[in-house]
Structure formats: C-alpha cells, structure tokens
C-alpha cells in the first residue's frame, strides 16, 4: 500500500514539511517560541535540558536533539543556542547536517540578546519556509513508514479494544515491509516474559530483561509502592488494579511480530521490523523517543483521554472507551468498540486504523494538530540537575 509523502534528498520520507526551530538548551526556549510564532510552517522543539547535568544526561540530550533534527518531517532546521550551555551546539549542528538538510545555528549571547536573536532567527526561518514550500508530496510505499506506538491515560478499554486494534495495525505494517517502535518500559513490568519470548535473538531477550530490571529498580529505589505513580490514580479509577494488569493490556499494542532490537532513548533504529526503545511512560518524555527514532506517524491509544500530540509528528488518538469518545471527541481520531469475546471486530478495527494511518501520513490533520496541542515535550534524563 502507498501514501503521499515528502521524499528528502537523503532518501528519507517525511509525512509533514516543517522548518524545525530547535532549542539546544532550556534557556533558548523563549526565542525559539517567538520565532515560530512569526513564521508560518515552523514547528518547534523546546525542552528542559541541555545544561548543568551530568555527562550521561548531556549525552542523551545531544543524541536526542541530533536525531530530532535529522527527522524527515523537517525540511530545514534553525538551531537556537544561548551560547554558554553544557551541550555543544556545534556537535548538535554537525550531527543534524549529516542529512544534508539546510541548517543554521544562531547564538543568543553572540547576537546581542533576545531582540537581535529573534530578528536574525526570523529572517532565516522565513527563507527556509519559502524554500520548504516548494516540496511536493509523491507516492511512497508504506514500507518507508516507521510508526511509533504509545498508550496513555489508560483504562481497561485500552487492553480490551484500542491496544489490540493497534497491535493489528502494527503487524500489518511490518508484514508490508515497514517498521514500528514502542517503549514505556515501566509498562513491561509483569508482562516481560511475553516480550522476551518474542525476542529475535538471545541478545535482544537479554536486553529486554535488562531494561525492565533497571526501570523496576529505579522505582524500588524510591522506597515506596509504585502504585499511584504506576498505575496512575487515573488508571486505577479506570479499573486497572496493578502494574501487571496495566502492562499485560499495554504490550498488546506492539502486535505479535519478533522484536528485532532494543534501543536507548534518542537512538535511531537501523533496518526494518519491530523495535523497542527504553523509555518511561510519561507523555512529554515518551513522545520524543519515537520522534527521535524517525517515526513519521505515532498511534496513541487512550482510555481516559490523553489530548497531546507532538510538534512535528502527527499523533493519531484511538480510544475504546465510548464515554471518552463522546465527551472528548475533539481529541479522539478513531473509536474502536470493545470486543465482546470476538476477535473479528478487532481485526476490522485494525484495518480501519491502518487506513487512518495512511491518510494521516498523506497529510490528513489529526485532532492534536488541528488544536495545536503538544508544543511542550521533553527529553528523558536520569540524573540530578546540578
């Protein structure tokens, strides 16, 4: 099957055509935001990292920003640096430039402050947007797609309907030669034995076991019952009793195919097939991971109604909760009725979702895009702010 995408000079295919305005550090966010408000066709990536952190966290930040800047949905990138941050804006610029896309770096302290940086940045963004506007969509094979998969604000209908339907769509994309990536390692706890059975190699099995143990230890190290944080109080109100129950319903969204590799946060997968990325479950940090991996579309299932998208990757909201679908229609793209002990309706729902994925990949606006909901993602880091 095919969709209409933007083929970039390096061969990668985008589903959107933005000029990316990316902060290297949290201190640049106000300038990034100001430039993007002035020029149509820009998407921002603002975050809370980039300075006064330990080296492992600075490395995660650098890697993630490079991967985001390389994303094929960004025709060109304007990098906004303060000038004294811990991460190297030059390293980030060099990494993004490997794609061959047009990149400009502005440094607020060198330019003489906010006003000059906004003027200079706006001038560059305007020229980039004019150039990007010349790009045309062309027919692309669905094997070019990498789909991110997420569930958030889950209730029992997530495991009952929305996640199984998403698992079907995931299997279909992989059968068609495409790729999918999911994560939320916390929500493997209690279901990791099922994922381990699907590992393509013993090494992948070892990595799955390793990331789950690491995530559970982080929770245990806090000296409290994880319940309330995971599952959240909202999950519990929705009928999910334990992390094991949440996990068993959650992993269904990753379908049934072999798991080819486990990636660290911010890495870009190589090859095709089904991948895991080690992430927490919280939305602002999670959504950045599939975007950094290069996912051109993200399917996000929700029970109670998580509204947010991502600045430059379309996020399709799917619910199996009829009440949520009616109450929060402005945030939900697709409703999947809970299956009453019949797999057939889930298969049909998976096919419906697949058509929606191709339509959105071809330019159909998602509810989160229409409402411009999702401008405040973040990067997942581990250590203290120092």
């Amino acid at each position, binding site marked *: 099957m095919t969709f209409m995408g933007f083929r970039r000079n390096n061969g990668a295919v985008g589903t959107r055509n933005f000029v990316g305005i990316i902060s290297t550090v949290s201190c640049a966010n106000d300038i990034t935001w100001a430039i993007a408000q002035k020029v149509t066709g820009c998407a921002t990536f603002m975050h809370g990292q980039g300075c006064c952190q330990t080296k492992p966290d600075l490395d995660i930040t650098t890697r993630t920003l490079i991967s985001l800047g390389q994303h094929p949905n960004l025709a060109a990138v304007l990098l906004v640096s303060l000038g004294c941050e811990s991460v190297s804006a030059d390293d980030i610029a060099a990494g993004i430039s490997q794609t061959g896309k047009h990149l400009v770096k502005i440094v607020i302290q060198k330019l003489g402050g906010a006003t000059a940086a906004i003027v200079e940045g706006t001038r560059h963004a305007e020229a980039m947007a004019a150039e990007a506007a010349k790009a045309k969509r062309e027919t692309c094979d669905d094997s070019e797609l990498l789909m991110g998969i997420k569930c958030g604000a889950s*209730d*029992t*209908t997530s*495991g*009952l309907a929305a996640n199984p339907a998403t698992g079907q769509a995931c299997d279909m994309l992989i059968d068609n030669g495409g790729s999918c990536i999911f994560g939320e390692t916390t929500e493997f*706890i*209690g*279901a990791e034995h*099922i994922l381990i059975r699907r590992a393509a190699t013993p090494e992948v099995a070892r990595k799955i076991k390793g990331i789950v143990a690491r995530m*559970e230890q982080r*929770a*245990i*190290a*806090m*000296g*409290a*019952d*994880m*319940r309330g944080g*995971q599952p959240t109080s909202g999950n*519990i109100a*929705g*009928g999910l*009793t*334990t*992390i*094991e*129950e949440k996990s*068993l*319903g959650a992993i269904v969204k990753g379908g049934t195919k072999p798991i080819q590799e486990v990636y660290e946060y911010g890495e870009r997968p190589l090859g095709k097939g089904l991948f895991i990325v080690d992430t927490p479950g919280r939305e602002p940090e999670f959504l950045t991971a599939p975007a950094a991996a290069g996912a051109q579309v993200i399917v996000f299932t929700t*029970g109670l109604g998580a509204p947010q998208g991502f600045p430059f990757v379309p996020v399709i909201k799917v619910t199996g*909760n*009829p*009440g949520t*679908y*009616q109450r929060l229609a402005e945030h939900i793209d697709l*409703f999947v*009725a*809970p*299956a*009453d*002990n019949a797999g057939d309706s889930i298969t049909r729902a998976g096919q419906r979702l697949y058509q929606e994925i191709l339509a959105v990949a071809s330019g159909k606006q998602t509810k989160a895009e229409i409402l411009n909901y999702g401008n405040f993602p973040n990067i997942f880091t581990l250590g203290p702010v120092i």
Partner: protein
Amino acid sequence: MISNKLMQKAVIFNSNDNVATALADLKAGEGVEINTAYKTVLITLVGAVPFGHKFSLTGIVFGSPVIKYGEVIGLATTDIMQGDYVHVHNVASARGRGDLAGGEK
C-alpha cells in the same frame, strides 16, 4: 460509530482467568451471564462493579494469584468471594514494591 447492538455485560479474556471485566456499570445483586468460546458462566454480583472494573468468577483465597489475560496480575490481600468486586482494596501488586524492599525483595 458506536454500535447499539446488544453487548455482553462483561468479558473474560482467557480460560484460566478468575476475574471478568465489566462492559457496563453493574449493580450489586445483579446476575451477569458471560458467554465465551469455551463456557457460559452466570455470576451474581456481591457489590456494584463500574464499567471497566473487575469481579471474581471464583473464590480466591488470601495470597492466591488473581488471573486476567491468562496471566497473574497480582495477589489477593483478603479472601475474595465469587461475585466480589476486585480492585485495589483486595489485590496488591508483586512488582515495583519499594515499600517492601529489604523485606521480600
């Protein structure tokens, strides 16, 4: 897109499960018939069970596993009767328990 066809009041995912999930808000004392590929069960509810929440298909002894999707989702923290509402008041997780660290972990 929401179908008005008669839906079951509850669903059982796996033949090994000892809990079912309500597909509607169910009342205390209500009789719930659940049809699966392998059996039909009739359960009389002890307490009310909201949409999406669980009730017990059998008696579950204190400390025994609570099973959904054919997998253990937690352990009973009290004796649970058939038809009881099953949730955080009578089931605990065995995972991520920093509060028990140094004890069992």
